[in-house]
């Protein structure tokens, strides 16, 4: 009996040793092993998957150069960063409308940029369906950078600097629009905000003040139906009853469905305290006035979201507490991170 159990153990051990060896994978040493796109533990799976555009540091650095380079605009004066400034949470410099080439103004407020890899659609009306094709709009819009794709490609291909950079990053001899757009996406997809005071509080690393805690409770009762955690948007389109006269029809421009009239994408509230003025047209300059109109005074238009019409008004104290909470969404890591700043 003893002999048999010994035999059995030996055979088990033997097969274990034998097979384990085969599964052993030796990882190559990677420099800066911590750098790269990582999904924060509280976040869902991202929409952008780096398909046909595998992430590398060289590609990211190229995207960063492009984001800051006015060469992409018609008269070489405006870069992406002109309207999306890091110190402003990648929104514009606290102006309602942005100024494009030749001093022309945009018709909408430049949103702050963060967690773009999780966005299913882009722009206030959701008309753009993929992170890589989003830059086509500002690059070619006469109110923004006003260039043509062919114009940009001929400028880049005439630059030995960029030809070398694209060669290094993508191993191409000729710069194509696909590689240009993919490089920009390497940069924009990395603008991740997941380390605000709010995130640290959720992770149990810091504590909230009493008003911040009350603000979070109020926020969860009144706001998360649209500004859903942890991205602070559910990416739906809603008419929040701002007015019945403004010309911008929002989502209806894309769907041509009158029930989508003046619906706009629910914006993320990350970095909201520093990205005033607010709303798609930058109409409110303070969070206090915004809450008066957004929560306490939504107009009953045909397509106003019913939630906002039924929600009970916020008291002055409640407003202050919500604002205290919104301030915990400022991401000092993102707006200070040197890897995203002007190269």
């Amino acid at each position, binding site marked *: 009996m003893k002999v048999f159990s010994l035999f059995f153990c030996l055979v088990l051990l033997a*097969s274990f040793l*034998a097979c384990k060896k085969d599964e052993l994978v030796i990882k190559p040493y990677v420099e800066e092993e911590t750098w790269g796109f990582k999904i924060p533990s509280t976040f869902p799976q991202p929409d952008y998957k780096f398909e046909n555009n595998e992430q590398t540091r060289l590609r990211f650095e190229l995207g960063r150069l492009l984001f800051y380079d006015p060469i992409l605009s018609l008269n070489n004066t405006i870069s992406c960063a002109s309207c999306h400034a890091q110190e402003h949470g990648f929104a514009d410099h606290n102006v309602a409308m942005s100024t494009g080439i030749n001093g022309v103004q945009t018709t909408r407020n430049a949103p702050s940029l963060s967690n773009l890899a999780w966005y299913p659609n882009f722009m206030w009306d959701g*008309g753009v369906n993929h992170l*890589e094709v989003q830059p086509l709009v500002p690059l070619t819009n006469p109110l923004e950078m006003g260039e043509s794709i062919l114009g940009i490609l001929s400028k880049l291909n005439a630059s030995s600097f960029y030809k070398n950079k694209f060669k290094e990053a993508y191993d191409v001899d000729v710069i194509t629009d696909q590689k240009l757009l993919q490089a920009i*996406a390497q940069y924009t997809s990395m603008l991740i905000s997941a380390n605000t005071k709010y995130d640290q509080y959720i992770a149990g690393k810091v504590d909230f003040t009493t008003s911040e805690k009350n603000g979070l409770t109020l926020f969860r009762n009144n706001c998360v139906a649209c500004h859903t955690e942890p991205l602070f948007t559910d990416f739906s389109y809603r008419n929040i009853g701002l007015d019945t006269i403004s010309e911008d029809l929002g989502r209806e421009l894309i769907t*041509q469905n009158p029930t989508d009239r003046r619906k706009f994408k629910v914006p993320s509230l990350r970095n909201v305290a520093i990205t005033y003025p607010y709303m798609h047209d930058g109409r409110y300059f303070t969070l206090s006035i915004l809450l008066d109109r957004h929560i306490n005074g939504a107009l009953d238009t045909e397509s106003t979201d019913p939630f906002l019409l039924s929600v009970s008004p916020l008291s002055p104290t409640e407003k202050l507490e919500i604002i205290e909470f919104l301030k915990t969404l400022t991401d000092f890591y993102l707006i200070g991170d040197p890897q995203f700043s002007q190269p």
Partner: protein
Amino acid sequence: MKSNIFIFSIFLGLFLSVSTSCKKKTTEPTLEPTPLAVEKGIVTIDLSHKWGFTNQTDFVLGTDLIHPMTNDTLNFTTFKYYVSNFKFKKADGTWYTQPESYFLVDLSTPSSLVLTIPDVPVGDYTDVYYTMGVDSTRNVSGAQTGALAASNLMFWNWNSGYVFLKAEGTSVNSSTGTFQFHLGGFSGANNLLTEKYINFSNNSLTVSANHTSTAFLQVNPGWLWHSAPSVSVLNMIHMPGTDAATMALGFYTNNSIILDHIVE
């Protein structure tokens, strides 16, 4: 005692043989029969564009063409459209599907009027299937290359999606003197994607090794106005919707592309 050592050495032997067994399995090369090389040929689709129902003339950019149904005089500056996803069907029901099968036919670029499909397995094909437009996947998959590159200016930036067909030009019948039709739409009620096919009937298309077989097709852009009104009523379309559907489907679903002859 002796017998114990004897038994033990048997176990030791077993232990050693088992412990090397797994490793052995993976290092031993597996012998697979070398796959028979499939012989392949080339198919080209040669498109010639015609105008008119009876008394057909060549469809040429920059010439005045009178539409037989609307009586509009149309002078085209641009005529471009996507065809995609070529599939070849054999009599036995098997298919060959071309990977990365996207073509932008552009009347101002003669080389784009001959579509080349390399690597078609040899055999007799009864039908060729293809799609008018660009499949929905490629409309939502980010920056593309080749025929689908944004630099071909066939992509709507502000409302992402491909323009499947562009027809532009001048007309005395239009109030603005011009017409500009950008047709597309890949989802929901606005979906224009249409699969068409060319049937070679008794006369199948034979593909032989290292040889080019050509199907000559005639395309008639006049079908755009099969259900759509005169340019005096509608001279511009710039987004997916009912107008785009009416116009595109006239061209997509009818007899607008027909087989002329084949050369093998």
